[in-house]
């Protein structure tokens, strides 16, 4: 069964002290039996570390058969963010947009955020939100963005974190363009709940590696009691469909 990972990190952030080059991630993917992973940085662009774009693109260039990349942006610089998004997708091979509202401190339904999501949708790429328990990242706060951009594929990373998984499932049930991504939240059973509530096609495996251990995150989904067919979708086929990558294309 092919395992693709919808949420991992490659970055070296001296501010956070999180130093995770691709060489830290790849062995963990190998250990977990994950064939490819979507990587993203720990900080937003435009920002104090403009080299992040080249760093992430460089990681994909070093491991082209293992990694895809999202560009992580802050809508607080609307024109530059849009320019970077178009550049990253059209010219650098990035496959989507990462938004971390706790980092850029805007409500997800804010017009500047919605505008950037629409740009992503126009480029045909999905948007992965950090969705946990902090204000401006909870599922019900992201729901207005999903409603405002029904043409955009919105992924709730961590599917609501520790306290908001029920809200994440409810938001996905209400909005057919919302997907749930399984990383880091500690409840195997909630993955089963999600599949029962919204079907297996919009639940995506993610690990949040290398901080969270990819092999453990795979084990978590295995514990959810999904059928073989459901696991095929959750572990890989759904992400391939979302990224427009058939089984035959790399």
């Amino acid at each position: 069964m092919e395992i693709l990972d919808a949420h991992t990190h490659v970055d070296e952030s001296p501010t956070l002290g999180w130093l995770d080059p691709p060489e830290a991630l790849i062995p963990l993917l190998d250990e977990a039996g994950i064939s490819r992973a979507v990587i993203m940085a720990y900080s937003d662009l435009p920002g104090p570390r403009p080299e992040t774009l080249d760093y992430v693109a460089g990681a994909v260039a070093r491991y082209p058969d293992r990694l895809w990349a999202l560009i992580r942006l802050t809508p607080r610089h609307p024109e530059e963010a849009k320019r970077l998004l178009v550049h990253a997708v059209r010219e650098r091979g990035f496959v989507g947009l990462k938004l971390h509202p706790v980092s850029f401190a805007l409500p997800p339904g804010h017009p500047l955020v919605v505008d950037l999501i629409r740009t992503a949708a126009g480029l045909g790429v999905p948007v992965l939100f950090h969705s946990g328990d902090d204000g401006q990242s909870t599922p019900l706060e992201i729901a207005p963005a999903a409603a405002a951009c029904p043409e955009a594929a919105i992924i709730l990373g961590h599917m609501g974190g520790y306290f908001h998984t029920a809200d994440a499932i409810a938001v996905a049930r209400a909005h057919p363009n919302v997907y749930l991504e399984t990383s880091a939240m500690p409840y195997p059973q909630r993955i089963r709940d999600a599949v029962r509530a919204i079907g297996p096609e919009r639940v995506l495996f993610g690990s949040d590696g290398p901080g969270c251990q990819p092999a453990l995150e795979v084990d978590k989904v295995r514990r959810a009691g999904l059928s073989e067919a459901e696991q095929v979708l959750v572990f890989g086929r759904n992400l391939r469909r979302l990224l427009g990558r058939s089984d035959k294309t790399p």
Partner: protein
Amino acid sequence: MILDAEIYLGPNLFGPGLDEAALLHSLDAHGINRAVVCPARPPDYHLGPANDRVGAAVRRHPDRLVGFARVDPHQGPAALAELRRAVLDLGLRGLLLHPWEELFAVNDPSVEPLLGFAQERRLLVQIAGGYPLVSHAVQITDVAGRFPEVSILATHGGQINISGRGLYDAGQMLRARPNVYLQTSGVYREDWLEDTARELGAARIVFGSGAPYYDQGFELERIRRLHLPSGDRDAIAGLNLSRLLALI
């Protein structure tokens, strides 16, 4: 030797409850030798009968279960009286403080008489840690500094934040307070466990499942898969807690 530092017994006001038979079955199913059993807060709010329930379970299974008392600091002298009763009459061996479910700040002065008693009787203390406003790592750091002789297990390692924004304060808590232990239930980020073991020693980390809030098998798997020497994993899985409870 596997010990689980945190399981809640009995009917639970806040969610699923675990009865004694299910609890023991779960220990057997996961190869767990012993467990610290804490009272869940029952739907009728009364912690005294919940402590009695834990005491009875421990008397029936003294080789498998270690009981912790649970009291509500809001009750002032009555809380201390209940803790004394639970320890002296029921034979419970530790104190659970659950600031989120009893709704108190863990560094509130009302907690001090309870920790004073814990110090006097050499009780192990467990704090439901990382909950916003009530048991943030800096609050645990504060109260733990007033009772440096009391060993304290901080559940979730004192941080419940999937953005990673609790990691800094929790790390500083462990560095500043050698009497605080990182208890692993539901914890965010395995690399933090591994880094902490390398920096401060695996002796500072204690496995707990937090069942039934968390999945006991998955929580144990979290420890089994840590990228640490097997001796460190064994220490985390049970030996550290055995030592803290003076079982070995």
